[in-house]
């Protein structure tokens, strides 16, 4: 007999680990997203009710899937319109006292690709992924994205309706579509991570969810390098998270307390990146992870391998061109080849005008001018950055810089 606390932990763990798979399997069987969610919910309620009495099953995932499937069969039986779906289910339905199936194919990959289909609006892809794959409640997702709960519920309803009515297929896309569709999936996962990474409050759990989902993706697509690249990137960022602010003030990479970086996360990040690189098909997430690894493995700020980072940014600019990447490259060049070379690149970017109103543009300029000892110009640039900075932690940091000029 398992102790109640142990059962509670087992149910919580099963919820974290199995929710997505139970929902994915039920959608695969019934094609009905709402029914799938409801029956998954019922199965977890049944676990809470019966596991304390009967013990935690040998394979919680198989038990939950079987229970949810039987629940779906019951509900469709009562519903005349469900007859057609029921016939499909009947093939797989099992008697309640029958032992659960030993091997259930993992349907989560189909679910991930469907949730992240480009015909859905981007915010809906994010919400749907968190709801159906990660099992976050609508209220939790609404809180994380600072949206009212009814609005978030509506977003989820519309997305599920569009999947059904527009005929978005429930499948892993064929090879010719895979690169593009996989990029869309990775973008959703990275956004979830970044939403959690930038904030100290309720959104923190999002980074853990993003890492968990990316681990699942890596396991399901072991021969694709970019999911591993993304996982490595997340782990390397996560390792530094607690040192990014101090008393609500942003701490730059250079000044972070490296002894407090999480070594085991860094090791895992580097190892994951190496596995990705060994496949010899580069991609933007692998390059970003390689840059993060350069920082994470430097014993101190002074020994950072800036020439290598500059080269990696050049590579990134080729794979995923963006003015933000160019700005980062300018910093790396400044650190590798001297401030004037970097400033020249920043000024070039500024005159192109594509980063107007982006606070890191004047903030970067200010920082390079400060390093070059050009205090008056640095002051003007810091003031401009202060005007544009989006978060309190960043404003506090910039004010402090301004005071110390």
């Amino acid at each position, binding site marked *: 007999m398992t102790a109640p606390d142990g059962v509670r932990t087992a149910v919580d763990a099963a919820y974290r680990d199995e929710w997505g798979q139970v929902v994915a399997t039920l959608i695969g069987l019934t094609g009905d997203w709402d029914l799938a969610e409801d029956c998954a919910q019922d199965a977890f309620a049944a676990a809470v009710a019966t596991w304390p009495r009967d013990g935690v099953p040998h394979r919680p995932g198989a038990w939950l899937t079987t229970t949810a499937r039987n629940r779906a069969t019951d509900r469709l039986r009562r519903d005349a319109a469900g007859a057609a779906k029921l016939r499909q289910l009947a093939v797989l339905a099992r008697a309640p006292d029958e032992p659960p199936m030993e091997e259930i194919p993992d349907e989560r990959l189909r679910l991930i690709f469907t949730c992240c*289909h480009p*015909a859905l609006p981007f915010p809906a892809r994010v919400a749907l992924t968190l709801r159906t794959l990660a099992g976050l409640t609508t209220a939790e997702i609404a809180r994380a994205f600072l949206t009212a709960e009814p609005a978030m519920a509506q977003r989820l309803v519309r997305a599920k309706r569009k999947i059904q*009515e*527009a*005929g*978005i*297929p429930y499948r892993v*896309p064929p090879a010719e*579509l895979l690169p593009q569709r996989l990029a869309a999936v990775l973008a959703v996962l990275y956004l979830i991570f970044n939403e959690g990474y930038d904030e100290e409050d309720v959104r923190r759990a999002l980074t853990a969810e993003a890492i968990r989902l990316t681990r699942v993706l890596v396991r399901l697509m072991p021969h694709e390098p970019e999911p591993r690249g993304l996982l490595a990137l997340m782990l390397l960022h996560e390792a530094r998270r607690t040192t990014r602010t101090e008393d609500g003030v942003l701490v730059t990479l250079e000044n972070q307390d490296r002894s407090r970086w999480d070594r085991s996360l860094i090791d895992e990040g580097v190892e994951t990146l190496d596995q990705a690189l060994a496949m010899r098909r580069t991609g933007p997430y692998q390059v970003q992870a390689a840059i993060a690894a350069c920082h994470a493995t430097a014993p101190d700020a002074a020994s950072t391998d800036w020439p290598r980072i500059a080269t990696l940014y050049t590579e990134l600019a080729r794979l995923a061109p963006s003015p933000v990447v160019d700005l980062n490259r300018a910093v790396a060049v400044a650190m590798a080849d001297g401030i004037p070379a970097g400033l020249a690149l920043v000024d070039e970017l500024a005159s192109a005008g594509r980063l107007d109103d982006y606070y890191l543009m004047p903030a970067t300029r200010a920082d390079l001018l400060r390093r070059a000892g050009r205090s008056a110009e640095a002051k003007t640039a810091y003031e401009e950055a202060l005007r544009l900075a989006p978060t309190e932690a960043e404003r506090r940091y910039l004010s402090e810089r301004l005071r110390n000029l």
Partner: protein
Amino acid sequence: MKYVLLICDDETNPPTNEELAADPVHQTWVADLERRGAKLGGERLRPVVDATTVRVRDGETLVSDGPFAETKDFVGGIVIVECANLDEAIEIAAGHPYARRGGVEIRPVWE
């Protein structure tokens, strides 16, 4: 699934029917549709200057000239296709020359 493809562009230098028929991209597209057996129907439309929009508001029929909405691109043709799912409809739409000139809006048929 049945879809209507709304073939849209901004109508600057529209090709004639003959030019369109001679366009190798269009020829490839027609051949692809035939191979798929996906086409149920469709017509090319006259330019938007010939369009009339009808709206009924509070029981009153409002007739206005021009397209239904102020937009840069106009519907220049429709194609009705039957295919497996949205991904196949996207594939078909992406092959049409107007996907490059303007865009193709895919609308599932309300059945």
